[in-house]
Structures are given as C-alpha cells and as structure tokens.
C-alpha cells in the first residue's frame, strides 16, 4: 500500500518562497507547484498559500475547486488520463474510459482504495493526431486500442501487487 507523501510545512514554505508575498496573480502558478510536489492540494498547504498570497482561504478554495487541473484529494501513484478531446472522442475514447472504469473498478476522477491508480479524463491534450490517447504517468500512448490498454494497465496492476 502506497501512502501519499506526508505534508511537510517546510516543503510548502520552500515552494512559496519562489513567489513574492501578497501577489494574488501568483496563485494559480503556486497551486501547480504545490500539486507537483504532493500530487494533490493538501488543505494545510492551501491555507499556507492563502496567507502567503494575502487572500482568504475562501478565495483560494474557490480557485482550487474551479479549475479542472487541481485535485483536493490524494491521488494514486499511477495516474491514467483518458483524453476526451473531440478527435479522440470520434475515434472511440469513451469506450476506453469505460474499459478502464471496469478494469480498475473506479469511476473517472476517482482513486483506487490502495492509492495505486487514479483515473482521470482530460478535455484535450493537443495530441489530436494520435487519438485516441491514454496518458499514463505523463507518457502519451497514442492510437490506443482496448487490447493494448488491457496489456498496459494489466502489467502495472501486477507490478503493483508484488
């Protein structure tokens, strides 16, 4: 069982130090950096961010929940993202998503109980020529078929169990 990395205040402070204080326009950039460090946006880190940029927790929370790119719950070790862009859609991406939902037994946007996999949709990653596209841990897998997807994810599931 993999745990999400612990939230160390020191680590958050280091990220915050890269941006001048009391500058609201750094907020979205900061949230990205924090998410890159923790794979999600921990509440504690958001509260520290709010203080740093000089906004209330309410304003920070509404920004964090407004944008699709931010996650407020711990995410899995492996992140499977199915591109739902138009080009991918007409080439069958909804079926790939359904397949992953069945195989991982979670819905889109959810994380497996053991924090191994998170399944996500993205609206388009701009690699439309290669649709349908499934991104696994940042790697673009183009022209995806259900058989290849089974192999790819199946292999990772086995590895995870060892």
């Amino acid at each position, binding site marked *: 069982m993999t745990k999400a990395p612990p939230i160390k205040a020191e680590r958050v402070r280091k990220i915050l130090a890269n941006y001048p204080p009391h500058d609201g326009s750094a907020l979205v950039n900061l949230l990205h950096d924090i998410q890159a460090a923790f794979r999600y946006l921990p*509440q504690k880190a*958001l509260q520290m961010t709010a203080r740093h940029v000089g906004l*209330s*927790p*309410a*304003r*920070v*929370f*509404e920004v964090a*929940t*407004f944008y699709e790119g931010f996650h407020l719950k711990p995410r899995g070790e492996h992140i499977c993202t199915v591109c739902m862009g138009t080009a991918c859609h007409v080439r069958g991406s909804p079926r790939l998503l359904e397949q992953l939902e069945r195989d991982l037994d979670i819905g889109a946007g959810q994380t497996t109980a053991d924090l191994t996999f998170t399944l996500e949709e993205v609206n388009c990653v701009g690699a439309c020529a290669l649709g349908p596209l499934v991104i696994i841990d940042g790697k673009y897998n183009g022209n995806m078929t259900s058989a290849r997807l089974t192999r790819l994810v199946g292999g990772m599931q086995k590895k995870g169990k060892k």
Partner: protein
Amino acid sequence: MEVTIRINDAEVKAQEGESLLDAARRAGFSIPSLCHHQALEPIGACRLCLVEVKASGKEELTTSCNFRVTAGIEVVTDSAQIRKQRAANLELLLARAPGSTRLRQLAAEYGVAAPRFQPRVDSQLPNCILCELCVRVCAELGHNALNTIGRGEHKRIGLPFNQPSDSCVGCGSCVSVCPTDCIFIKDTPTTRSIWGQSFPFVLCKNCGAPVITGVHRDFAIKEKGLPEDYYDTCESCKQAATSKRFAAVAW
C-alpha cells in the same frame, strides 16, 4: 457625470457608469432580478433583468444590472422577447428552487406554473439559485467565510474546505440578502446557529436578551471604533433608558 438616457420612450437622468438596473428602478421602472444588490458588484447571474439596449446603433438583449449607463442609450424594459427569455430563465431557476415562494410568484407572473424539467436541487442548500449574493456580501464585509465550490453544472455555494469557517461572525447578512431563503439560521435566547457553527450571543446586561453574537461584536469594535458599551444593551433596554432620561428632563 449626469447623463440622459431613454427608457421606454421616457427621458431619464442617470449617472454615467452606474448600473442600468439601478437607474431604471430609480426612475420607477419595474425589472425583475434575483442576484442584484446595490451595495455589491453586479455579476449578471440570474439573467432576469434582461432589457433591450440600443447603443451606438447596435441593439442587444442584455442584463441591465451589469450594463454601465452611457449617454444616449435607448432602453426597452418590456417586450415579447424580453418576457419570453425572462420566463425561460425563470423556468430553469424554478427547477433549482421549487420551494421558494418568491421565485414561484415571480415565475407565475411570467406564466410559468411549473418547470418542464425534473428538479435539480442542491442537496446541501436546497433552493439555492447560485446568485452568489451571500458570497459577495460576506466578502464585502471582509469576513470571507463563504465561497463558490466547483464550476459549471457542479457549482455550488459552501464553506472553505467544506468546514465551518473561523472567519464567520454569525452576522446573518447572508440570510438577509438571500433571495430564496435557503440559508439555515436559528436563534435561541443564548446562541445563533448558522453555517454549521454555534455563536453565543452577547446578552443584555440588564435583561439578558440577546444583542449580537460575541464575535460579531468583537469584529465591530475592532473595525468600527465605537466603544464597547455600545454593544452590551438590548434595543428595549436602551429605549427604556432613553425614555427614563427624557422623562427626567423638564420640558
């Protein structure tokens, strides 16, 4: 700067840059709206204050709350198209807030008895129509205890991190401005319950009646600079004291 505009063929004076809705209402024109408040920046959420505006040759159907007045505009506040589109948005809103008397009445005025859609009611804040008046008023007061959560179809109103907020003072302004009465508030002789928290009242030093929540008083003392004893007596006791004092004076 004062400018002249035309509303339904009448000449109306208005301030340049002010909300067209405010100007029109001041001049006596009735325009429905559920998300506008003069003390707050307009956001044009409910889409009921639709009017037709002709400005520099271009005609458009627009919300009046967030339309800034400029000299010479020509405004129509009632037409078949305006009524049709107000009714359409009322129908959509009514499906979110079937329990709101005010909304039901307004919808009925526009011929909408019941929405043709299944209700889509916020489970945590039934009848909320997402006008954001509560969020905006709370921010305007400097408390920032409320926020929107999410966006699009999933947008809702709630607390930061979905937890009771330590910046809420229990003033109840959100309740006062809510157009659909969807915010829960309950006062007992000693405490006020709102947004998942209980706020003890400051009790009148004479009769023990509730005066104001303790944190709201603390906030007011800090922000408004009036002496503390302004906040320790209830309205009735103050009146009684005033009348006694007056009675003592020889007139």
